[in-house]
């Protein structure tokens, strides 16, 4: 397999952008009509994902050390879509057809062989990872809503009970699918450490015009069922560092930090923890009551709410999270955990680096905007 030849060919094909993925899926569905049902009606996001995953795989095709973990995760992720071993050759055939079509006259037998070899390799790694995962995890969990609370007109906290044990690390997230929006999985963080009763909390902010979050916030009812994917994510708590802890959450970015807070609270001697919870308006501090209750019972915990878009008076600090954190002094000897929107996390990490915290002590979970 000639890695450079693959890269050059893909660069040429990728110039056609969205058309490539459009052709690929049309070809796939025409050959295998039953596969269409595994995808949502609108396919634009799906096509973007396909192209970016392909781009990443091709760019790292000669860097297996970094590529393999990514492809393994891809294989595990696809279990929840109902993808099975027999689908892989069908996808491979459409992929090669697509590449040949867009390569035009520059397509050669060698390229065909290279692509087939590369695809077989990638699909084997995906399948192996999926297989391995299936001995530990189901393809998805069914979970029933046991409580649902609107904290604001556009923000809800709800609790689910999965149909079998759901093991995860505090700080991780899982993808959710609601029956009203089939095939549209959205990732949310678990907002508590695993409990003996197996219930899990999620915090959801409604995104205007988003397809899934309005359903989760406004239409979900106690008794409804949703699907839950296997947990993923690396913003987990480092118990061995021994350093004090800085938790920074913007809006529902608070969720994974609360799970970490649970974990810290269960330690025999918890480190000192500063939790900064930010929102644009005071009514966005949707979970402040609970946090303050926790702080009152935990001498190691300090909770600092911050409001950016108006002066909240005595209720909270006035300013963006990076500004407020900067005002509160010295964090060089802390481990920081940052979760929120891309804008919030980027600005906060910049500020932390400016304040002298090193990169390896900052763990980040960036929420998607839509």
């Amino acid at each position, binding site marked *: 397999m000639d890695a450079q030849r693959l890269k050059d060919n893909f660069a040429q094909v990728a110039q056609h952008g969205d058309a490539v993925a*459009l052709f690929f899926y049309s070809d796939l569905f025409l050959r295998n009509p039953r596969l269409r049902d595994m995808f949502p009606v*609108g396919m*634009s996001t799906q096509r973007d994902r396909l192209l970016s995953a392909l781009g990443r795989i091709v760019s790292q095709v000669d860097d297996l050390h970094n590529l393999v973990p990514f492809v393994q995760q891809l294989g595990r992720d696809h279990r929840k879509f109902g993808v099975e071993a027999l689908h892989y050759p069908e996808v491979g055939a459409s992929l090669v057809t697509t590449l040949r079509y867009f390569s035009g006259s520059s397509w050669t037998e060698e390229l065909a062989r290279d692509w087939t070899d590369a695809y077989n390799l990638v699909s084997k790694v995906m399948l192996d990872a999926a297989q391995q995962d299936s001995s530990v995890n189901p393809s998805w969990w069914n979970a029933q809503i046991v*409580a649902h609370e609107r904290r604001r007109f556009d923000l809800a906290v709800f609790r689910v009970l999965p149909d079998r044990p759901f093991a995860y690390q505090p700080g991780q997230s899982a993808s959710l699918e609601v029956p009203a929006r089939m095939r549209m999985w959205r990732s949310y963080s678990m907002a508590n450490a695993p409990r003996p009763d197996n219930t899990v909390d999620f915090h959801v902010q409604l995104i*205007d015009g988003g397809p899934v979050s309005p359903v989760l916030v406004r239409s979900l009812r106690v008794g409804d069922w949703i699907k839950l994917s296997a947990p993923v994510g690396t913003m987990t708590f480092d118990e061995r560092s021994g350093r004090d802890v800085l938790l920074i959450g913007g809006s529902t970015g608070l969720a994974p930090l609360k799970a970490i807070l649970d974990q810290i609270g269960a330690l025999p001697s918890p480190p000192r923890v500063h939790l900064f919870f930010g929102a644009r308006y005071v009514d966005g501090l949707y979970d402040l009551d609970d946090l303050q209750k926790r702080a009152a019972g935990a001498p190691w915990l300090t909770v600092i709410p911050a409001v950016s878009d108006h002066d909240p008076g005595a209720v909270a600090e006035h300013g963006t999270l990076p500004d407020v954190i900067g005002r509160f002094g010295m964090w060089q000897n802390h481990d920081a955990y940052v979760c929120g929107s891309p804008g919030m996390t980027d600005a906060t990490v910049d500020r932390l680096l400016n304040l002298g915290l090193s990169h390896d002590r900052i763990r980040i979970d960036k929420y998607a905007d839509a």
Partner: protein
Amino acid sequence: MTSPEIHAQRITPAELQAVNFQRAPLGRRGFDEDQVRAFLGQVEQELVRVLNEKADLENEVGRLRERIAGAGPDAAAIQPEDAHIQAVRILSNAQQTADQYVADAQRYSREIAEEARRGRDEILADARSRATLVLEEAHRQASYAAEQIAPSSEPMSGDERRELEREIAYLRTFSDVYRTHLRSYLEALLRNVEEWETSERESLSGTRAALPRMD
């Protein structure tokens, strides 16, 4: 890619989608961001269409060349491969139409939601400022009444005292009435908001039982 660059290579749809412009420096006027984005979206779609057409044509040329090169008795018949490519093209067009509908519906829903959010903020701000005004007015009147009594160290006649007490009583009532008005105004507002929410919820999923609260 995060910033517009000039490059020798052709610009791709993906680059158009990912392009990010720096904000204009403070005090400098810039274009409306939404308009720029919408336009870029149009350009991207157009570029995808043109590139699609180009790839189709290149393929067409390739196939025609092959056909001429190997011109046999059945060269004029439609090849199965051609039919498949045509089907792919038709399905792709249908998918693009569906995507366009979904995108339009989402944009429409976002615009409505944003408008409603603005409306809510305005109503709340208006209610807050009214509340402040009403309270200030009541407070001012009450202080005025108090001042009327306090500085007069001279002994008052019974008539004067009764007059002032009447005035205080009047103002107290006045303030109470103001508070009541204010309260009912705010409650009406809240009821309004709740009615909207209920009717919207019903339209979303039919009537259902109220939710238990989470502790």
